[in-house]
C-alpha cells in the first residue's frame, strides 16, 4: 500500500499526487516513470515522475483524467492508499552540459518535463522553455517552469494565452542557436516539433508514451518503430530520436483499444453495473 500524502487539483481534471515511496524516491531520475495500480481490479497505469523528495521519501506525479482509470485515480483523496507502485522504470533522460536546450512541453506532460528542465538548468545549460495547452484554463506548471528556464514561451491551441499553436517555433529555430530539443506531450506535438527541427539538424529527443502493460519489457505492447527498428518504449526508451520515430504507427497503436476504453468509462460512470 502506498499513501497519497498530497493531492492537489492544478486545473480541472489535472491533479498532482505525492505518494509515500521511499525506495523509489531514492532511485528515480528525470525522465523515468512509475506504474501504479489503484486496487485489485485496477489497470497498470504508467505515469512519468514529476519530482522526487528523497529526504521525505516521496515521489510526485501529475495525472490528466482521460478515461476510466485516470478518473478513478482523480477521485482519490489525500490520505487514501493505492495498492501497487512499481518503479523507477525506463531509462533516465540524458542530461549533460550541451549548451542551449529547448524544452517543449504540452498538456499534462509539462509537469514531468519540469523535472528534466531543472536538471538541465542545474547542469549549467541555457534552457529555453515552451509550454502549451489546449486553452489558457488548462495550462499547468507555468511558475515552476519560469523559475528554471532562461526564457519561457507560452502557447495555446486556441490562442487564449500566448502564441496560437507552434508556428512561432519556425522563427525561434532560425533566430536562436539551439543544441538540443526535448519534447514531451501529445504525439502530434512531438511530431510537429520533430518536423520543424529536422531541416536545422538539431538533435530532438521525444518522450514516447505508447500503451503499456507490464512496463518491464515482457509484453511488447509498447513497441514503436524507430529508424526502421522495433523498440520497446518501456525499456529501450521512453526517450527516442524524434527524427527517426514512426509517429503514424504510434498514433494508430495508441487507438487500439478505444472502443473498449469507452465501454470501461461508461461502466465506471454507471457505478460498475454489468453492461
Amino acid at each position: 500500500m502506498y499513501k497519497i500524502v498530497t493531492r492537489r487539483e492544478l486545473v480541472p481534471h489535472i491533479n498532482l499526487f505525492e505518494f509515500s515511496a521511499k525506495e523509489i524516491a531514492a532511485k528515480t531520475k528525470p525522465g523515468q516513470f512509475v506504474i501504479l495500480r489503484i486496487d485489485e481490479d485496477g489497470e497498470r497505469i504508467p505515469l512519468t515522475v514529476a519530482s522526487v523528495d528523497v529526504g521525505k521519501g516521496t515521489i510526485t506525479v501529475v495525472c490528466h483524467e482521460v478515461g476510466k482509470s485516470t478518473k478513478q485515480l482523480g477521485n482519490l483523496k489525500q490520505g487514501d492508499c493505492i495498492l501497487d507502485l512499481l518503479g523507477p522504470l525506463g531509462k533516465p533522460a540524458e542530461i549533460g552540459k550541451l549548451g542551449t536546450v529547448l524544452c517543449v512541453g504540452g498538456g499534462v506532460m509539462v509537469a514531468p518535463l519540469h523535472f528534466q528542465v531543472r536538471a538541465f538548468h542545474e547542469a549549467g545549460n541555457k534552457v529555453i522553455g515552451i509550454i502549451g495547452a489546449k486553452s489558457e484554463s488548462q495550462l499547468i506548471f507555468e511558475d515552476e517552469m519560469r523559475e528554471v528556464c532562461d526564457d519561457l514561451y507560452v502557447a495555446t491551441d486556441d490562442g487564449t494565452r500566448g502564441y496560437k499553436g507552434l508556428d512561432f517555433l519556425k522563427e525561434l529555430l532560425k533566430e536562436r542557436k539551439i543544441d538540443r530539443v526535448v519534447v514531451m506531450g501529445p504525439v502530434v506535438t512531438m511530431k510537429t516539433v520533430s518536423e520543424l527541427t529536422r531541416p536545422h539538424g538539431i538533435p530532438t529527443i521525444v518522450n514516447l508514451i505508447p500503451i503499456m502493460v507490464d512496463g518491464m519489457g515482457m509484453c511488447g505492447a509498447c513497441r514503436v518503430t524507430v529508424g526502421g527498428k522495433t523498440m520497446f518504449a518501456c525499456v529501450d526508451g521512453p526517450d527516442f530520436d524524434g527524427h527517426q520515430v514512426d509517429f503514424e504507427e504510434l498514433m494508430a497503436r495508441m487507438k487500439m483499444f478505444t472502443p473498449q476504453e469507452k465501454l470501461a468509462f461508461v461502466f465506471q460512470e454507471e457505478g460498475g453495473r454489468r453492461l
Partner: protein
Amino acid sequence: MSKPKPKIKKEAVVMPKQDPKERGGNFDEVALGYTEEQVVAEAERCLECVKAPCVEGCPVEVDIPALIQLIRERKFDEAIRKVKEKNSLPAICGRVCPQETQCQASCTMGKVGDPISVGRLERFVADWERKRGYEVPQQSASTGKRVAIVGAGPAGLTAAADLAKLGHEAVIFEALHKPGGVLIYGIPEFRLPKKIVEAEAEYIEKLGVTIKVNAMIGKLYTINELLEQFDAVFIGSGAGLPRFMRIPGENLCGVYSANEFLIRVNLMKAYDFPRAATPVFVGEKVAVIGGGNTAMDSARCALRLGAKEVKIVYRRSRQEMPVRAEEVENAEEEGIALEFLTNPTKFIGNDRGWVKAMECIKMRLGEPDASGRRRPIPIEGSEFTRDVDTVIMAIGRTPNPIIQQTTKGLEVTKWGTIVVDENGKTSIEGVYAGGDIVTGQATVISAMGAGKKAAKAIHQHLTKKK
C-alpha cells in the same frame, strides 16, 4: 501390505473434464481431477517394479513409489507430506508438468498399457491438502544468514522455500504485482486456477519467506547493491522477452505477442472486463503463430473470448510441437484448428493501421537442426493470403535482459542467458542463478529443480563461510 495383487489394468482411470462445448465459453478449470475412489484405483494399477524408473524421470526426484503406496492406503496426509519433501509446488506440477516426457515416460506399466498417471495422483493429494489447510513443517533454527531472491517464478519460489526450511532468511524481490512468474501471468486460469498459485505462494510465505512485489531488480536495486545487504543472491528472473519474426506489418494494431495477450487475460483478468479494468481485443478470425504451450494457451484464451475461428499456424509438423500432449488434445476438442508446415511472411493492414490479412508460405521438413527437430524449409512459390483480424505471435521468449545489463561482472552467453556452473553458481561470488534465465525457456519443473540445486549450493556456501 500383503494385499493380493490385482490383475493388470492396462487403461488409466480417465480424469473427468468439463464438456468441450461448454468450456469453450468459460475460464473455469478444464480438468476436474480424480475423486478419492478414482485416485486409489489409479494407484492400484502400479506394478511396484523394483527399479522405479519414474523417480529418475522426475527432475526433483519425488519418491513416487512411496506416494503411490500411501495413496493405496488412503493415507493422503502422509502422501502429500512425502511429495512436499521434494516438491513445494505439487498442486501446480500435478497440473502443468509434461509428465509424458518425465516420470511417466519410462514407467514400466507404460510398456504394456497406459503409464501410471503420476501427475493426476500428485494433483489429487495436493488438492486434498489445500482443501483442508496447509501443514507447515517445523523450521530449522535461524542461521542469521540472509538471501535475496530475484523473481517469484517456480525457480525463485523453490529456492526460497528450501532456504527457509534450512533456517536462512529468504526475501524474494518480484517486479510484477503478484508472485508466480509464468504461473500467474502466462498459464491461463482454465489450466491452472490462479487461486492455486496464490495458495502455493502463501504456503511458501508460511515457511517464513518474505515476498516483496513491485520490486524490479536492476532498477530499484542492482544485484551489486543487494550483495551489500544479503549474504547471497539467487537470480530466477525467467525468459519473458517476447520474440517477433521481424516481418513486415508486425506492429499493426491487432497483432500481439503471446505474452501481451496472456498477461492481459491472465494477470490482468481481461476476461472479466470491464469489471477488471484492463481490456483485450479479440476479433473473429484469430491466427496464433507458433506450436508450443504458449501458442496453445493463447489460442484457447482467444476462443473463450469469443473468436469465431482460431487457427494455430506452425512451421513444422505435429511431431515437432514442444507441448504437453494433453493440451493439444484439449485444444482440438474445443475446435481449434492446427495448420502445419506453414509460416507467415507478412501482415497486411487496412487504412486505419489494423491487420486485415496475412501472407503465408508453405514449408517442408529438411535435416534435423540444433534442437534435433527437422528444420522447416520454405517452399518457393507456395505463398497464399488469408484474412485475419487478430494475430498472436507465440514463437518464443528470450531471457529478461535487465539484470544482465545492470550487473557488473556477471558472465552472460550471446543468447543472453546467465552462465552458471553445475551448482548454479554465476561468475560473481555469492550470486547464483537458475530456471529459464539460465536455460532459456524450459519447464516449470526444470526451473524448480534448478532452484533446489542452487538452494543446496547456497546453503553450503553460507554454512562454510565464517
